Each structure stands twice: as structure tokens, then as C-alpha cells.
């Protein structure tokens, strides 16, 4: 049996914590170890915004047709935080996101986005739904989609406005979509379409970005590039991002928080607390191995995995699953 120490490559030094905090200019809660949660507060020029959560969910309960989907979900998201939302199929991830944008009927409990109710804070939230099917004949370019992100809810004809144009350009720049901004959206690759939808969501400069399975159907490169983009949006633009993903591997390097849903209940923690073989296996009800390979932590479904008492993955000798011995 070879024992793998999983968290070494992920350990952040004090300098790194300070650097990250400086970039975010916000309060950062680091979950380095479970025994003592370190709170690093850095005075910044955004002092007035620093303490307020962008998203605060308190005791959220949602039931559809008598079936309890979410029960007492509580968590908060700070600016500059990239938070994963995980759980098995039907755990209520999409329902939770829909409650956050105020389209889920009859939720109980409290959701506040920068202190406002979801229905009143639509300008503060960008939403990227699960895979959209773009018909190849759709008469819309990426530019038009982003423009609709700015003013799609307004009545009356649209007059030319330089401000609108600049707003669209800024959103296109933020996701790196300038190269294909004037192409028909249905003819782009899956990764480019996903970028276009994110630009649409960013058009009104939201503080919170919600993404529902953005990595589904993307190839390795697109998935990694998209994860990098999300990391960039949180670090550089100070956005709070909540993203659901079944394959969390591309997101692990940029994610700093995880909310997990199981049987309607939610719990949250730092990435290093949650991404443990024992925790994930219990959560998904299926053996999941967390291994380290090439300096990165990876999550793999593994029917033969054995889990030690301390939550570490024990690799059977001669197994082909890799990882340094």
C-alpha cells in the first residue's frame, strides 16, 4: 500500500495568502486546516464593501410538488470568491441557482444579493444556464447576444448609443471573445459559445456570476481555458462566482470554496476540506479517489478505491491509476 499525501501541492504559503488578499482587496477566509480557520483581513480601498457578502443564503427551503428539494440551505459568498456547487444528479443544484435568480416558485428562507432580494437584484447577477442549443441558423452574432445582455429587457426600439457599444466591448474583452464577436453564434465551437453566454451574463457588470454546468460538453482545452477565465474574473474583476460542475478537475486549481448538496441539505467548506476521498465518496454515494498527479490534485471515480480512516486514498499496489508512490 502506498500512501499519498494529497495536500502538499495545494498548500498556500503566507505570502501567497497575502498576495491573494491584496488582489481581491477583500476579506479572505482561508480554510488551510480544519482545526483553526485563519481569517486574513487586509485593509483596502474598497473598505466599505469588504465585509458585506455578495450572496447570503439563509435557511433556504424549496419543495416542488410536495417533494422537499432543498432544506435549510445556508451559505455566503464573498467578492472575489470562486465557489463550486457540487452534488449528485437531482440533488437540487439547478433549483438552488434558480432560487438565487428569483425564478423558482415559492422558496422559503432568505436569499440576499448585496442586501437585495433576488427579484430586485437582477442587475447584480449574471446567470449562465445549462447547455443552450444554438440553432445554426439563428440570426444572432455574439455581439448581438451581448447587446441583449445589456438591454434585452427594455421595451421600444434600440437607438444607437456609444455607451452601449462600450459596455458590449468591455464584456467581450472580459471573456476574450473579440476574435469571434461578429460571427454567427450557431456556427461557433462549444467553448466559444460558452464564452459568448458568459459575456452576455457579464454585460450589466454583475457582482455575482452563477454558472450551471459550464464545463459540460467541452473538450479538455476549452474546459481548462474556461476554468482559467473564471479564475481571472474572480481575481481581476473581483466577481463572486458560483459554479456547478460534475467534473471538478479543471476547476480545482482556481476554486477556493465548495458548497455541497446531498439529500436536500447543504454544507460548505474550503476546497481542501471537501475534496477528500472520504467526503466525496460519502457525498456521491460512490467510491471517489482523490489523487495527486503531476503537481495537481485530481478527483476520479474509482470502484476499487479503499479509503483510510483519515480520509486518505490508499492505492492498491500495481494499480494503473498512477500517482507518485
Amino acid at each position: 500500500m502506498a500512501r499519498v499525501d494529497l495536500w502538499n501541492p495545494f498548500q498556500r504559503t503566507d505570502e501567497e495568502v497575502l498576495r491573494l488578499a491584496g488582489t481581491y482587496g477583500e476579506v479572505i477566509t482561508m480554510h488551510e486546516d480544519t482545526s483553526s480557520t485563519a481569517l486574513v483581513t487586509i485593509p483596502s480601498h474598497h473598505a466599505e464593501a469588504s465585509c458585506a457578502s455578495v450572496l447570503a443564503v439563509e435557511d433556504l427551503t424549496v419543495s416542488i410538488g410536495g417533494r422537499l428539494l432543498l432544506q435549510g440551505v445556508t451559505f455566503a459568498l464573498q467578492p472575489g470568491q470562486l465557489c463550486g456547487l457540487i452534488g449528485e444528479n437531482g440533488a437540487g443544484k439547478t433549483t438552488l441557482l434558480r432560487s438565487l435568480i428569483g425564478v423558482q416558485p415559492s422558496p422559503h428562507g432568505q436569499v440576499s444579493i448585496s442586501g437585495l432580494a433576488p427579484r430586485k437584484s437582477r442587475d447584480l447577477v449574471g446567470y449562465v444556464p445549462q447547455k443552450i442549443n444554438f440553432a445554426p441558423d439563428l440570426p444572432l452574432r455574439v455581439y448581438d447576444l451581448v447587446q441583449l445582455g445589456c438591454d434585452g429587457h427594455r421595451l421600444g426600439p434600440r437607438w444607437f448609443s456609444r455607451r452601449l457599444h462600450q459596455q458590449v466591448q468591455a464584456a467581450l474583452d472580459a471573456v476574450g471573445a473579440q476574435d469571434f464577436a461578429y460571427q454567427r453564434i450557431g456556427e461557433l465551437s462549444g467553448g466559444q459559445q460558452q464564452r459568448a453566454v458568459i459575456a452576455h451574463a457579464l454585460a450589466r457588470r454583475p457582482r455575482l456570476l452563477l454558472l450551471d454546468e459550464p464545463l459540460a460538453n467541452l473538450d479538455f482545452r476549452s474546459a481548462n481555458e474556461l476554468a482559467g477565465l473564471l479564475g481571472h474574473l474572480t481575481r481581476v474583476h473581483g466577481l463572486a462566482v458560483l459554479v456547478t460542475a460534475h467534473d471538478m478537475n479543471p476547476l480545482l486549481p482556481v476554486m477556493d470554496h465548495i458548497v455541497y448538496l446531498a439529500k436536500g441539505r447543504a454544507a460548505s467548506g474550503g476546497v481542501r476540506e471537501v475534496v477528500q476521498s472520504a467526503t466525496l465518496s460519502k457525498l456521491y454515494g460512490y467510491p471517489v479517489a482523490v489523487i495527486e498527479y503531476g503537481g495537481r490534485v485530481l478527483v476520479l471515480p474509482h470502484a476499487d478505491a479503499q479509503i483510510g480512516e483519515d480520509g486518505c486514498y490508499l492505492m492498491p499496489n500495481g494499480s494503473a491509476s498512477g500517482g507518485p508512490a
Partner: protein
Amino acid sequence: MFDTFMIHTWIASTIIAATAGILGFFVVLRRSAFAAHALPLATFPGAAAAQLLGIQPLWGLLGFVTIAVVLLHQLQKLGRKDVAAGLVLVTLLAVGSLLLSMTNTYAPAVFSLLFGQVLGVSAADLWPVAVIASVVLIGAMGLYRPLLLQSAFPELALSRGISAGVIDILFLALLGLVTAMAMPVVGALLVFSLLIAPAAAAQSLSARPLQALLLAVMFSMGMIWLAIALSFWTNWPIGFFVGTMGALLFTSARMFRYIRHRWFSTGLPTTMKNQSMKLIPAAQPGEA
């Protein structure tokens, strides 16, 4: 061809073609071609009902189109859009067959309701056409952006607070108005071909929404003008020309697009340009 009795025909059909082009753009975008087919046919018994009640045919048509729109909207809420359209179509056609058997409408009148009566437009017929067309034009202009967003991306529209139900009923109401206005002139079957073919052709030619919309209006007007002229010279039914020209227009638009892609694109799609590639060393089997 441009005699005084023909002038009304030209004006009415131009207005009808323009409004049908505008709404057709959204019909194709929303993929509700079947609903656009069902509405005119479900409205068709309205004329028979009007005759039974002794009122103006337009009121009968407006009454039936209202019933059809409300039914369609309610059924669509329950689930599948295509099934809803089909149910409305058969239900109201069934009512229509009963109403037609109760009146002593003779076959040519039914025929003209289905295939139109373009050459018999009077000055009095122009007023309702103009009024309804202005209402539809103002409605479509006001709703342009939410309707565009909701038709193309319902999920994104929902997150912006645009209600699918409200947009759907407003759109069906506009479509119903166009149907009731156009039916006595161009017929139940012709409305459908004016709604679908020009818009589908325009959308495959232009990637800009407003450009595609205007192109759809131009195609629609061009189609009906040509059809009237050809019908006038050949004495063949106008429905034949509109229907076949619609199919021809769509096919040529697709062919044009295919040729443009095939011959004038630069080989590689632009997705491959400007993308830095980072090489990741492949894992060696002997490692670990």
C-alpha cells in the same frame, strides 16, 4: 394590371406581406411554425360563424382567433407546443365543419377563404387592414428586444425577469391579429407561406437580427408582388405562386449560403486562429 380596382389589391397585399414578414421572423425564431399553421386554419370557421350570426366576417374571424390564441396559450403551458397547436387545429376545424354544414355557404366561398381572394379587395376592406397592421407594427416595435431574447434564449430571458408566459400570449395575440387581417385577402393557407418562407430564407442569409428582419419583410413583399403579377397574367391561382415561390426562395437562400461558405471561407474556421496552444507533456507509462 394597375387599374383602379387593382390598386386596393396592391396596397392591401403590401401591408399584409410586410406585417407577415415581421411576425414571421419571430415565428421562425421561436420555432412555432406549426402554431402559425394552426392559427389561420383554426380561425377559418370564424367566417361561417359570422354568416350564421349575420355579422361582418372580420368580427367572426377576430372572435375565433381570440379563442384559438387563448386555447393555444393554455395548452402550451401544460407541455408540448406541437401537441397544443395540433389540438387547437383539430378542435376548431371540427367546430368549423359543423358551422359550415349549418350555413348554406357554397363551395367557392370556402375555397376563397382557404386560398384567398386577392383580386377582389375593395376600398372598405383596406381600413381594417391598415388599422390592424399599425397595431401589430407598434406592438412588434415595442416588444422587439424582449421578444428577440425570449424567442432565441428562453432561459436567459427568464433570468432577466422576462416572463415566458407574458411574451408568449402577447406574441400569439399579434400573430392572431395578422391572421384575422390577412385571411379574407390572401386566404388561410397563404398567410402561412408568407409567415414562414421569407423569414427562414432571411435568417439563413443574414446573421444580424435587424437585417434579417428587414430582409424577411422585403422577401415577403417581393413574393406577393410577383405572385399577383404572375396570377394576373396567367390567370392561375395566386396561392400556387406564393407557395412555390416560398419554397424556391428558401432553397436558393440555403444554396447561396452553402456556396458562400464553401468557396469564400478561408479553409480553417476562425475558431482555430489566435489560440495559443500549451503543450502538456504526455504521461509516460513507466512513471509512478
